[in-house]
């Protein structure tokens, strides 16, 4: 078996704030093979985005602290690379797309130039060749009339088109890994489906690995090979997508799946919710971080950190009182 494309090992990213240290990502490990799709799910503030930005090294320098861990990408530890070397990784090796296509494009630059700029940064294409390639890319992500659109500004395009352009920019240099941070959250449902479809098609075509950050379990079911569930800066359960959806073990994952509305339920039924609030990450609970909200809490959940147990070869979870396998 060959080494995985990306191996994240005990990654910790902390923020030094005036009133304490916020442990946004606190000991996360996972691996991702080339061409596979990993979904990272979790509620707002669980550290998904910080995890993504830690991998690509895009954290606000002033407060963010690399508290430990390794990010092995194709054998190199990205955390040890100097910024200048990281710039060679971002783009041709790892690219990232963001949640809001309204703000991820420069409002005062034509979309064509934004693609050309990335191409010129990482390849030695001539200006003319880069422009031709930009039009090709726009065509590839399904922009109608790409030649004309390349000369336009982002504000003349719809949300879906802008996200397509963002994807075109990200794919300009054929990255081996694409990190998509909630790529469809800001879009309406039909456009979401189109964008996901596009991502999957391009992923197959370019044999690219994908990390998909989302809080939408429907997107996970649709897109992912594997899923990691994050809660309060940790991965509490990870498994192939079928196992997570059908046989969740960790109580948080279980509760999360329970809270998905079921279309067969009568419409007056109240939606099940997880009571309480996610913990304060400056002073997280000592034991299991989900314990204060958990309906199946045992005494040791408050005091001890549950270790990662294995349900099967690829299914790991951290829970003292897991949901039974059915």
């Amino acid at each position, binding site marked *: 078996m060959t080494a995985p494309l990306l191996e994240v090992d005990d990654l910790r990213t902390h923020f030094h704030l005036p009133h304490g240290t916020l442990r946004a990502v606190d000991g996360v490990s996972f691996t991702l093979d080339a061409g596979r799709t990993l979904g990272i799910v979790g509620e707002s503030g669980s550290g998904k985005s910080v995890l993504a930005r830690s991998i690509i090294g895009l954290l606000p320098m*002033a407060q963010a602290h690399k508290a430990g861990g390794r990010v092995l990408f194709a054998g190199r530890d990205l955390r040890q690379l100097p910024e200048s070397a990281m710039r*060679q990784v971002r783009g041709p090796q790892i690219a990232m*797309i*963001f949640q809001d296509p309204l703000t991820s494009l*420069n*409002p005062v630059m034509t979309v064509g130039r934004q693609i050309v700029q990335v191409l010129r940064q990482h390849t030695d294409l001539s200006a003319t060749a880069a422009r031709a390639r930009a039009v090709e890319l726009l065509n590839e992500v399904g922009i109608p009339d790409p030649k004309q659109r390349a000369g336009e500004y982002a*504000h003349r395009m719809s949300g879906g088109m802008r996200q397509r352009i963002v994807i075109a*920019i990200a794919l300009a240099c054929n990255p081996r890994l694409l990190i998509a941070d909630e790529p469809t959250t800001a879009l309406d449902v039909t456009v979401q489906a189109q964008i996901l479809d596009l991502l999957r098609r391009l992923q197959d075509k370019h044999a690219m690995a994908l990390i998909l950050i989302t809080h939408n379990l429907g997107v996970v079911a649709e897109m992912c090979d594997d899923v990691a569930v994050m809660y309060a800066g940790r991965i509490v359960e990870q498994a192939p997508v079928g196992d997570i959806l059908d046989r969740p073990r960790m109580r948080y994952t279980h509760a999360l799946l329970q809270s998905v509305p079921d279309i067969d339920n009568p419409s007056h039924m109240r939606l099940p919710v997880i009571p309480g609030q996610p913990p304060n990450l400056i002073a997280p609970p000592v034991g299991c971080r989900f314990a204060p909200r958990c309906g199946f809490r045992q005494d040791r959940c408050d005091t001890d950190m549950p270790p990662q147990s294995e349900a099967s070869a690829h299914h790991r979870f951290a829970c003292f009182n897991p949901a039974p396998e059915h």
Partner: protein
Amino acid sequence: MRRYRPSVVLSLAWLLLVAAATLTAAWLPVADPNKQSLLSMLAPPDLQRWFGADSLGRDVFSRTIHGFRITFAVSLGAAAMALVFGGALGICAGYFRGWVERTILIGVNVLLAFPPLVLVIAMVAYPGDALIKVIIALGIVFMPAMTRIARANTLVFSEREFVTAARAAGMGNARLIVRELLPNLVPTLLAYCLLLVAIGALAEAGLSYLGLSVPPPTPTLGQMMASEQANALEAPHAVFFPAGMLFLTIFALNLIGEEVQRRIDGRASAA
């Protein structure tokens, strides 16, 4: 394309006229601004001397358009200096944050705490070319506000995702600032710069009125007003024309500045 208001068109026309007259003052068929004629002391305006003559019989029209050369040199120079240095410092502060920002802000606050007039007087007291000194002094006075505006806007745009996205595509700091941030900042900074040109023109007139700007015999508007004010009742034209020209010019600059500001705001809300 929005239509221009008549006030803006008139302002532009006026500024162009004054600028043209100023630039070509040396070649225009006007009297020598320093040629005295005791026979025509305080002569009222006539067809020969449109603005009349001053207490030494010098042609006020000629002196006014020559005086505008200093006005424009100082106001444009100081505003440009504030734009370049203040803008660069502000962008660095807003972009790099941390100790860079703290250091720059301390410097800015020290400058702000200094009374501007004292600063200018101290600067002018140094030996050297008066014009350069006045430009530098006003430029220093104008810099803090420009630094703060540049910093504030950089902070706003650095937080926008397109900057992170560009960084995620492997762009370095220099490219990011020049390609991504600067085009977004330029309109706001230029609009404020235009305002500084107007303030600078007024400030230069004030300084030369106090005798702190370029010394005689070079005519400057403030110095003309200062030397002729004693005769203001007898011969108001010698004070009134330079003052009126200055007023109209600053008024026009402000109207245009306001229009530029309005268009930037309109564009921001449309985007």
